[in-house]
């Protein structure tokens, strides 16, 4: 059992009526990434979604704990922000990326990233305004300035930057390359009204771009964005 051959062969021969795996014939070519795949869209099962519903609040709280308690235990803004972003990934995988995208608007993501950078720079520049050096915490006009200045930098600065940028990278990578003539005008409005496959899906090149995937991939992309709208949040039918 050293190669992948035995399994593939068994796949090809082992299914008598093609009834297994719902309405599809078994795979015979050994490919695992099916670009020929048809049938009902994939919604997460009723086991995974409740588990994510249970785990996500804990994980989110834990990410905040790691961020806020960075001064006393391992952790800090970077790790905590990454955990918070990972919670969003988890929700997106369970409930569909389009639904998550509508729930977590672009404004929120951008506000997190930009706000974090501004807060960090602000905390650094306040001492400069008061006649000190950049990030000279002692001059901050708050009680226990060094400790709370640092906490502010970690929590409101680094944590929010990392969380926002990671969520943004996730969403933008999930959307892929836009070939609609540079800075896509239609895409932005398209997403605002929450109608994923509209303009974007009609343009065959919009999912392809430089990488130029085979037609099957684009098809799958369309099916998926059709399916993962609000309907996907209502609970998998199976």
């Amino acid at each position: 059992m050293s190669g992948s051959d035995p399994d593939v062969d068994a796949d090809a021969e082992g299914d008598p009526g093609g009834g297994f795996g719902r309405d599809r014939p078994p795979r015979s070519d050994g490919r695992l990434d099916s670009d020929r795949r048809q049938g009902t869209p994939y919604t997460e099962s009723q086991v995974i979604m409740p588990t994510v519903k249970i785990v996500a609040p804990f994980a989110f709280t834990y990410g905040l704990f790691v961020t806020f308690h960075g001064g006393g235990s391992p952790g800090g803004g970077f790790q905590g922000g990454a955990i918070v972003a990972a919670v969003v990934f988890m929700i997106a995988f369970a409930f569909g990326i389009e639904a998550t995208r509508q729930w977590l608007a672009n404004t929120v993501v951008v506000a997190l990233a930009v706000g974090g950078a501004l807060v960090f720079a602000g905390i650094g520049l306040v001492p400069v305004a008061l006649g000190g050096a950049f990030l000279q915490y002692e001059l901050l006009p708050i009680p226990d300035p060094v400790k709370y200045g640092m906490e502010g930098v970690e929590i409101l600065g680094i944590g929010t930057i990392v969380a926002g940028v990671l969520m943004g990278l996730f969403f933008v990578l999930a959307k892929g390359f836009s070939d609609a003539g540079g800075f896509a005008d239609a895409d932005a409005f398209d997403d605002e009204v929450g109608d994923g496959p509209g303009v974007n899906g009609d343009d065959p090149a919009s999912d392809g771009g430089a990488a130029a995937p085979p037609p099957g991939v684009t098809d799958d992309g369309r099916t998926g964005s059709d399916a993962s709208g609000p309907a996907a949040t209502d609970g998998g039918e199976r």
Partner: protein
Amino acid sequence: MSLVDAPLAAGVTLGDFLLVAAAGFAVLAVGMLYRAVVGPTMQDRVLAVNVLGTNTVVILAILGAALDEPTFLDIALVYALLNFLMAIAISKFTVERGGVL
């Protein structure tokens, strides 16, 4: 005196025993790497990495106990969460490649 300094046998404390146990879990992880490498399907690999991840969570927790640094349990907790994320992400990807993603 914490519990990990308690002597088990001549010259061996509970902390030493726990470190050896963690090494045992790590050896099991190396064994499970076989399935992650050989496959044959992607699901086999994800499954093996998921089991490996659970193993690693136990290793991290035992290390935290054996080194008498309870804050190390935080890392195990983070890992338990992200291991779950990794499992559902990859398993979904293998089916829906480019679809729901």
